[in-house]
C-alpha cells in the first residue's frame, strides 16, 4: 500500500483507504473515489497535484489530498 502521490504515470491502482477528515472522504466519495474504486494515474505532478482517471472521468487532486489516499497496485 502506498499513497496516491507515489504512483507512477500509467499505473492502475485500487483505492484502499482514505485517511482524511470526514469532509474529505465524503467529498471524494460523491465523485466516485472511495475504497474499491480503480484509478489510473495520468500525470503525477509531484510535488504538485496529480491527475487520475476514473472510468471516463479525469480528476485533478491536490498534493495534500493525494498523499492521504492510500492505494495498492492492480496487476492485470
Amino acid at each position, binding site marked *: 500500500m502506498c499513497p496516491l502521490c507515489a504512483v507512477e504515470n500509467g499505473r492502475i491502482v485500487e483505492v484502499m483507504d482514505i485517511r482524511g477528515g470526514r469532509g474529505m472522504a465524503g467529498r471524494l466519495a*460523491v465523485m466516485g473515489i472511495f475504497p474499491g474504486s480503480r484509478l489510473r494515474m495520468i*500525470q503525477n505532478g509531484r510535488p504538485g497535484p496529480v491527475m487520475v482517471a476514473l472510468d471516463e472521468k479525469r480528476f485533478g487532486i491536490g498534493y495534500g489530498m493525494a498523499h492521504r489516499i492510500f492505494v495498492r497496485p492492480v496487476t492485470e
Partner: protein
Amino acid sequence: MAEITICLGGNPNAGKTTVFNKLTGAHQKVGNWPGVTVEKKEGEYTYLGKTIRVVDLPGTYSLTSYSLDERIASDFLVKEHPDVTVVIVDASNLESNLYLAIELLELGANLVIDLNMMDVVRHKKWQLDVEKLSKTLGVPVIPTVAKKAEGLETLRQTILAARDHQPEPLKINYGLEVEEALSALTDLIKRSKDSSLYAPNRWLALKLLENNTQIKEWVRTLPKGEQIISKSEDLATALNDRLGRDVEAFVIEKRFGFISGLVRKCCRKPLGPEERISISDKIDQLVLNRWLGIPIFLVFMWFTFKLVFDLGNPLADYIDTGFSWLGGQTTALLGKNWFSSLLSEGIIGGVGSVLVFLPNILILFLMIGILEDCGYMSRAAFVMDRFMQRLGLHGKSSIPMILGFGCNIPAIMACRTLESPKDRILTILINPFMSCSARLPIYVLFAGAFFPRQSGAVIFSLYILGMVMAILTALLFNKLFFKGESSPLIMELPPYRLPTVKNIVMHMWHRASVFIKNAGTIILAGVIIIWLLASMPVGVEYASEQSWIGQIGKIFAPLFAPAGFGFWQAAVALMFGIVAKEVVVGTLGTLLAGGEEGLSEVLPQFFNGLAALSFMVMSLLYIPCIATIGVIRSETNSWKWTGLAVGWSLLVGWLSAVVLYQLGQLFA
C-alpha cells in the same frame, strides 16, 4: 406569470448549460442567488401554450453541503419545491452521474432524467436499455444529444406531462445497522416536523446521519430540533463504531453499490481495450507536465493579456474620445455654467468612465469563456495549485491575479470561478495590488522626469513591489481572518473540446451586463460626488485651490509631508486618482503646469527624486479606483470587506511611501 417551474440539475460537464440554452433560447436572465454571488440563471419557454420557467441550478455532484453550489441546489430543491426537476446525466459516465439522480429520487423530487451525450454512447457501441432504467427508477428517462438538439422535443413533452407526477421517494437498503438508526430518527422527526421542510422524513434522517450541516441547521429550527440533532449525533457515533468507519462515507458507497447494480442491469459495454490513452490525455501529459506546465500557462495568460489590451485599448480610446467630444459639445451648446458642467463633467464623464471599460471587459470575458469552454481553465488551476496553496490561496486564484495587471475590474469579476467563499474573498482583496495598466502613465511620467536612465528598472520594481504586497497581504489576511481554512484542490478536468460560439457569446454578454448594472451605479455615484466637490462652492474654477476639493487637499497635504509631497496639488491629484488612476497625471498637469505639456519640466520644482519615488509607490498601492471599489462591493456583497480593502490599501500605500522617503533621507 409562469405556470410551471422546473429546475435543471446535473454534474459539472454533463452538458447542463447546453440543455438550458437550447430549452430557453434567448429568454434568459442572470442574477445572483439570494445572499451569495453565485450566478443564478433563469429562463423561460412556452410549450403547448404553457409558460415554463426554468431555473438552472449550479453544477453539483451531490446534495451534500461541501460547497456553496451544493448548498444552493439543495436549498432550492427542498424549500422552493419546483414542479419538475430535470437532472442531466452524462450517459457516457453513467455511474458517477447517476449519483445526483439517486439522491434526488431519495428526496422524492418529481424527476425527469435527461440521458445526455448519447452520441458518445453510440460511438462506444454500448447497449443502454433506457426503458429498463426508467422502469427500475420509476421516472421518465429521455435520451438526448443536447448540442444537436436531438431528443429535446421529447424532453419538453415529458416535462409537461410529468408535472402532476408524484413519485414515491426511492428507498435504498442501507443494511441492518443504518436502517435501525434511520427508523428511530425518522419517528422522532415525524413527531415534530412542520410544513416548512418539504422533504421526506427518512431523507432528513439520512442527511442527519450523513452529518449534513445545512440540514442540521434546518432541523434545529423544528420544535424539539435540538433533541433530534443530539439523538442523530449519538446514533452516528454508535454507527461509526459498529461499522468500523464513517457512516457518511458508508452511505455514499451503498448508493454507488445500488447504482452499479442498476448499471449492470441496464447497460452492456463491449469488452475492449478500456484503458487506452486518449488524445485529451496526451495533451494533458504535455500541458500538466511538471516542468512545462507553468511556462505554458504563462504563455496563455500573456496571449489573453495581449488581446484584451491591444484590441481593447484602441476601442476604449474611441469611447473616451467620443464622450469627451459629447461633453465638449454640451458645454458649447449650453455655455459655461454649473448645469453644463454637471452634464458634461459629471454625468457624461461619469457614464463614459463606466463604459470605457466595456471593450476590455468584453474581450476578457470572451477569452475566459473560450479557455473555460475548451477545458483549459481547470488545467490552469491544476498547474498553479502548488504555488498558490503556499500563499493560502487556491490554484484558481492565479488567473485573476495575472489579469489584474491589465485591469482590476475584470480581474475581480473573474474571481467568480472560485467556489469557496474564503478563496474568492481573499483573491479579491489582494487584487488591487496588482498594478493595473491605468497606473502606468504615472510611472512613465515620473520615472521619465526623474530617472531617465533607469526608468525601465524603476517601473519594473514597482510591479514587483505590488506583487510582493499582494502576497504578504494574502499571508497576513489568511492568518487574521480565515484561520487557515484550506480548500484542497479536487476538481474534474473535462476532456478538451472545441468551444461553441453561442455559449461563449451568451456567457460574455451576461457577465458584462451584470458589470454595467452593479459596478456602473457605484462608479457613477462616485464620479458625481468628486465632480460636486471640485465645482463647489458655486462660481469657483473647476478643481482650483478655492474649490472644496482644493480645500480638502489642503487639509490632507500635511499628512503627505512625511512622504515628501506635502502640497495640496499632490493631495488633490491623488484624490482624483480615486476616480481612475490615469487621471492623476491629467490633474497634476492642470494644477502644476496648466496642461500636460511641459509637466515633466515643472515637476522637479515640486518633487525631489526621492519624493517622486515615494509618490509612485503611493500611486501604486493606495486605494483602488472607484470602479474597482464598486466591483469589490458587488462581488463580495459586503461593505465590510470593501471597507477593509480600501482601508488596508490606504494604510499600506501611505506607510510604504513614508518608510521609503524617511529611509531614503537617512541614507542619502
